[in-house]
């Protein structure tokens, strides 16, 4: 989670500087070589986070493949794979020869809520779990079980697109 948090904070500081120019993408990607996560998944996740936090809005363009590749020195197919994955999840759509654009966003969360939730987690439940002597694996197991037991109620979750149209 940590890299994502860094990323979120970094972006929140940068967000005022980024101008909403359609030809440029508002975001860029980083690579965490130690995360053990495949590169394309990192791109997928970073994009989803950006969507959640509102750095990417509907109609924004994702970075051009060649720009990502120039910065990260990775194979273009990896980027394409990530974009395809995002497309299959319904977030983006690619227009041949023009680029890949945001179609819809997941239920977003404003940064202040995000920070708030983070804080309450750290200071509340998490510190309690730690004081019980639980290690990371045990904690993750508890959370996973909890999520499995409580499926997401899709109707309750509005996409940003829905909110805007309303």
């Amino acid at each position, binding site marked *: 989670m940590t890299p994502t948090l860094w990323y979120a904070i970094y972006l929140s500081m940068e967000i005022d500087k980024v101008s909403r120019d359609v030809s440029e993408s508002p975001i*860029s990607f*980083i690579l965490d070589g130690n995360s053990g996560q495949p590169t394309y998944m990192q791109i997928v996740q970073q994009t989803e986070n950006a969507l959640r936090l509102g750095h990417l809005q509907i109609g924004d363009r994702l*970075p051009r493949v*060649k*720009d990502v590749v*120039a*910065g*990260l020195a990775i194979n273009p197919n990896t980027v394409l794979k990530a974009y395809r994955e995002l497309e299959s999840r319904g977030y983006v759509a690619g227009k041949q020869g023009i680029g890949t654009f945001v179609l819809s966003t997941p239920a977003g969360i404003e940064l202040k809520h995000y920070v708030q939730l983070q804080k309450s987690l750290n200071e509340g439940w998490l510190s309690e779990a730690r004081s019980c002597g639980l290690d990371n694996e045990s904690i993750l197991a508890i959370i996973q079980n909890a999520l499995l037991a409580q499926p997401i109620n899709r109707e309750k979750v509005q996409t940003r697109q829905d909110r805007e149209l309303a």
Partner: protein
Amino acid sequence: MNSTKMLTVVSGPTDSDTQSFSVLQATLILRRNLIIALLVYPIVLGGILYLWLPEIAQYSLNKVLSPGTNQKLIDTISQVQNRANILVTVLPYLPILVGMLVGAPLFSRQFENGTYKFDWTQGAGRFRLLRSDLVVILGISGLGAFVIGSVYQHLWRQPLVLATNGVSSSFDSANWLSGQIFLQPALYAAETIFFVVISMVIGTLIKRVLGAIVCALVLLVTVAVAFQPLYAQSRTVNVHTVTTNDPLEINPETQAKLLSHGFSPTKHGDFEVKRGWLNANGTLSPVQTDPFLKLDTNGYAQVDPATGNLLFESGARYKAIVKKIGKPYVIWWRAPSDYPFWVAGWSIAMLLLSALLGGLIKLRIGRKS
């Protein structure tokens, strides 16, 4: 990451010059330093020769001499000869130097520093580059040698013709360009080309510059030692014409031997001399004087090998001989053969061999299994 530094694909017509396909131009750039050296050295050497022989050069320009000025010319020639002797002695060895320093590094350097990996993977390919290299390098080497040979011929041998002829109404610049005179520089050029190609072959066999140079040196010296006496003796006709008193003439038979074989007297009677005015090609001019050597019935002096050899020696010995006999006399050296077919034949042979070796280089640099 800063994504502004990215490749902008240039579309539409571009303004700058499109570099067109030209292996020749590539060769000129790649071998630039070599080409400059090959152009500079003959100009420098030729220039030095030209500068050191101003008076003679002056006479070469279509001037006709009157008998009275001969002595001055003769003295001048002697002076110049002493002065330029070193340079003239070096000239026969120049082809070896050029071969060694130009031909040997050409390919060996490419192998040593790996630039062949770049050169041979370009669209033009190794054989077009080779062809261009051969044409340019051999062409310029040959040209440079021809220039030096011409200056030498023009400024050295020709004045000697003058000197020994005395008044030469037949001398004009046409002679200069006529077969005999022309061919000597051609031989020199052919020899240079031949030696450069031999060294190039060595450069494809020994793929280190230093090793190739050393090997080329050894091989070229061997070839020169073996063959140069045949086609181009190392010593030139150097005629000091003397006062009207003591000229020498060579028995025509002896002279024929000398001209065709680089003959050196090995026994008494091999060398027969008569004194008289000598031309550069060894023929007798009409003026006769009293002999200082004992003559036989034909009017030829029998010279023992030692004295005969003395007659072949360098200017430094001149004084010794003068001292011995008490008066100046003609010394003449073995002459490079003027026989046109001889010279032409050798030139052509060397050029043909060069072409063959060029083919060998092509084989050597081809993709080997």
